[in-house]
């Protein structure tokens, strides 16, 4: 029994099929609890008023935007090293989710920034590096779409993902150097005594859990679709041959 067993598409399909409904329900419950609690049962902030509540969408999506890329990096590495097809397909399936998460983070940030900073957009390091991350996602997806042969596409996108990760980190620090920020520092971290005030913190945790589970559900669903699409094309090819 090891993790690598699930590189076998049949085993992967069986396991993911069993996990999927549970994860979907759990994610829905977490999101409903977190969002309803956050939107309707927390007090307005002293200075920010009700706009503070956008944190329940902004923070989890921003977290996921980065973590989805990390997941793609890991699955790309697994593909390059061990050549498990499920891994490459999972990376392919995750990219559009990542791009949507990045977009949600950017848009909710802009909606919050308009009343608070007085501007929709500022060339702040965090904002800028998210925009660059968005471009990386676009390039990655476009490369998948442009190549017909599946294995070649998987190889090329994996290498692009590796190189892109290095450059994404480089850009992150370069933009820091280039302009000082308007964006506040991290409001959540594990090693800090005090994070956001507890009233806001607890529903936020539910929202983050909900977003993580939502991502798991979507990525499993999309990977299953990709596997089925592969099987279909294999069957069609066999039919043509026979």
């Amino acid at each position: 029994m090891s993790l690598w067993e699930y590189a076998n598409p049949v085993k992967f399909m069986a396991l993911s099929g069993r996990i999927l409904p549970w994860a979907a329900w759990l994610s829905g419950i977490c999101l409903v609890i977190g969002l309803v609690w956050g939107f309707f049962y927390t007090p307005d902030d002293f200075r920010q008023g009700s706009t503070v509540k956008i944190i329940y969408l902004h923070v989890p999506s921003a977290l996921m935007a980065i973590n989805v890329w990390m997941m793609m990096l890991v699955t790309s590495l697994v593909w390059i090293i061990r050549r498990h097809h499920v891994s490459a397909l999972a990376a392919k399936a995750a990219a559009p989710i990542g791009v949507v998460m990045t977009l949600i983070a950017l848009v909710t940030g802009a909606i919050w920034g308009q009343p608070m900073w007085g501007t929709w957009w500022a060339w702040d390091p965090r904002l800028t590096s998210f925009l660059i991350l968005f471009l990386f996602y676009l390039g990655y997806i476009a490369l998948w779409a442009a190549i017909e042969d599946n294995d070649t596409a998987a190889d090329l996108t994996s290498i692009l993902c590796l190189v892109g990760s290095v450059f994404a980190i480089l850009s992150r620090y370069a933009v820091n150097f280039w302009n000082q920020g308007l964006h506040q520092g991290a409001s959540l971290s594990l090693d800090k005594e005090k994070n956001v005030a507890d009233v806001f913190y607890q529903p936020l945790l539910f929202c983050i859990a909900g977003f993580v589970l939502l991502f798991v559900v979507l990525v499993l669903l999309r990977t299953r679709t990709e596997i089925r699409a592969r099987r279909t094309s294999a069957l069609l090819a066999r039919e043509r041959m026979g």
Partner: protein
Amino acid sequence: MKALLIRDLRLAIRAGGGFGLGLAFFLIVTVLVPFGVGPQSELLSEIAPGILWLGALLACLLSLDRILALDWEDGTLDLLACAPLPMEAAVSIKALAHWLTTGLPLVIAAPFFALLLNLPSAGYVPLVLSLLLGTPALSVIGTFGAAITVGIKRGGLLLSLLVLPLYVPTLIYGAEAARRGAQGLETSTPLFMLAGITSGVIALLPFASAAVLRVNIR
């Protein structure tokens, strides 16, 4: 290796090789900017470092698909793959040839184009220095992009989509060094960062480019 370099240089300089195309593009960008933003000389001298860097970057981008596309079409790449020369060395030579035919002319021409944009006199040395340090990185990163898209028909647009985000750090430090120089500030920090990026990229990226090319040739 030397033979490959000489061959690439000769092909690039010959008619139809695209030599001078980047330079002409750079000139046009520089000439068009004052039409776009107006001829006030203070404004121009303020934005000159950024415009020159951006122009150099775009001129570089314009010629990227020529690095490998022709060799891919006529089968030279297949021969190179079979040659005793490792693929990493071959792509490095390709990048070097691209820099010699595109990057270096840009560096040499930049001070003259800077005259058109009224760059303050303190800015010339940092501008040339930053371009000299930065353009090799542009060529090497561009070779990686060209290697990824070489198998794709009409991959030019995809090439720019892939390569432009990778150019961000180089552009930031390069333009920052040139801008600080123009304002008479200390330029060593961005120049060091730029040199770091360039040497890191020269050392590591040929492996990625070669891996990608092997996949494409397979």
